[in-house]
């Protein structure tokens, strides 16, 4: 059997929403210290509403060609969160000689993987010494 029997049509509805909060503080507790802390958190979701693309008349006479789109809307769903935090501590031994510690973490959570699971956490830290001239 081969042939076409018209078309099936639906209006698809796609919704996305994201919230992002961020905060930071810089502190100079004394002449020798500089401290900075930054925080950001993002939650984002996006996805299609369920759709049927039903072709009832066609399926009624051709039951072997029935199809099921009940899960198709979920294939491209996005549901992610991202947490960012970084901290910097700088200590001045003298006016011109100092040391800096820096730390950063990004935690990405992929709750509904699309092509593959991109969930991952990366941490960085640096320790440096500096001289002003």
């Amino acid at each position, binding site marked *: *059997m*081969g*042939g*076409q*029997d*018209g*078309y*099936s*049509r*639906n*209006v*698809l*509805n*796609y*919704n*996305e*929403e*994201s*919230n*992002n*909060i*961020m*905060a*930071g*503080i*810089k*502190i*100079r*507790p004394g002449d020798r210290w500089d401290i900075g802390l930054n925080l950001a958190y993002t939650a984002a979701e996006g996805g299609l509403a369920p*759709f049927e*693309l039903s*072709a009832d008349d*066609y399926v009624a006479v051709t039951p072997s060609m029935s199809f099921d789109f009940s899960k198709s809307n979920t*294939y491209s769903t996005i549901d*992610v969160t*991202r947490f960012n935090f970084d901290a910097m501590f700088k200590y001045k031994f003298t006016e011109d000689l100092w040391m*800096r510690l820096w730390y950063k973490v*990004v*935690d*990405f959570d*992929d709750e509904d993987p699309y*092509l*593959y*699971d*991109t*969930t*991952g*956490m*990366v*941490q*960085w*830290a*640096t*320790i*440096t*010494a*500096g*001289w*002003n*001239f």
Partner: protein
Amino acid sequence: MKTLQTFVLATLLAALPIAVAAEDGDVTPNTTEGSIEFGGLFSDVDGSPDMAAEYLTTNEGPVGAFKLKTDQDWGALDLKFKYVAQDQNVGHLNFDIKRMVRSHNTYTKMPHRLGHDPMTALTSVSRNGKVVRNTDMSPNQDYVMNYAVFEDRTELQFPGFRPLTLAVGFREQVRNGHTQAFTTSHCDSCHIKSQSHQRDQETTDGSLEAAVAWKSGVIRARYNNRKLRESLPSVTGTFDKNLHPELQVPVFDNRMQYDSDVGVVPVDLKPEINKDTTRLDFRWASKNGFAVTANGVWSETENRGTGNTADYSGYVVTAAKRFGNHLRLRWNGKVYQTETNSVYIDTIERVSPAGPQAGTTYYDIYGKNYDHTRYSVLNRDGLKSRLDASYRFGRKLGTLRGVWDYEVIDREYYEVAPGKKETTSNILGVSYRMRPAKGLRFDAEFKHGDVTNAFMAVDATCSTLVSSRYTNPWNPETPQYDDQHATRIGDTTASASSWNKAVLALGYTFGQSTLTGRYVYWDGSNSDGDLTDWSKNRQTATITFWSPGGSSWDWYLGWAYQDMSLDAPTCVPVFDG
């Protein structure tokens, strides 16, 4: 590395004036300050770094930073360079020599993780044995492109003739690493192959500029030459043999232009580009508050592989006039034209080697021949106009502003409605800004857009074809793709024919603290075509607060919200077989 060498060379060149000045012995040092920082970077990756560190290094090793800023009799120099890792560093170098030579240089390098598609979505088997399958020929490859760009602009101004400024510009962008190359073989079954494509792309821009300025105006001419080159423009691949999807025999050769019979061929071919751009600018302002600017841009872009060219020419005029202290009028007009050559793609008409259609071509069976000339949808004449009037009531009562944007796009080939190639849009906007009290600022804006023949694909979906049932795929009466296309009645779009936008913003400063809020609402739709029914609604809101706290600390807090809802129809043909 080449880009980094360019930056280092520019740094050394910049150091020359210091040495020359020192030898001259006529320098009175004024101020010099800087810093050196050195240490180590440690990192840890748990899971995938593709999103958590999409544009950041995960390498470990030494880090360093250098800053130097000096103001001397001969001029000034500002140098900053930070080395984070081999694939991530940033720097700038600015200097001027007695205001005769002014140079601004920047350098940035970073990785971009592209992700590795495992192609698990490309795996399926139908009830009767038709298969979609994939082969990953580089399963362990990390797809990362390292991006590095160096930009320089150096101006020369001669003491004997100050009105003249000459400038040279240079930009080098390097992208190298590996990208995932996909190829699809058809007809035996859908077989998607993936392999690593090593990339080494370089885009260089060189520009020359001359400007002559006088008390009330300036005229400027600029020429830019761009070259995009790919050292490894393609990889090689072999397509599968065309086979009947169930019987697995070669009976469909006449339905495909080529398959494995052409042997190893280049795939994932990336084009190399040449682009020349010339620009003329003119600006003039009178003493009575009237100002006019005009410019023209001409460019030609050439694909070196195909020889296809795209030409652009555009002209812009802006006139502004202030009437007293309250009323201001401004008009901006632009006309432009783009033209890309048409392309005829010759087809290979193969003969089926076996089966009921053995010895025949597609034309022999179906008697159909198609026009394979491709016309550019970008070919067009465009006109844009913006009229902007503002009236300032006073310091507290604020400013009222009205805007009218008018645009016409007249396409050469592409129809955006049956028999129509022209899109006309009108946008009317009104905004009001006031400062009702000390520290308080209020902004409101409303815009309405109306588009006649918004961009649309006419008869692109919803095929109404109702055919007979054919048990034999070789039956010449079987509907072909063009039969299915010719019976489509649905128009598709992602452009609004009517939309509204509203913006509200508040700012409040108390003491040294600042609170700001902004809300944007956009709503548009398009039901002009057949079965179009497209609509989109978007809202964004932001609130930020910053406070100095105390003398030894300051802090900030922010929130951003975005919400979008999109309605768009989809049509699928109902097939049997």
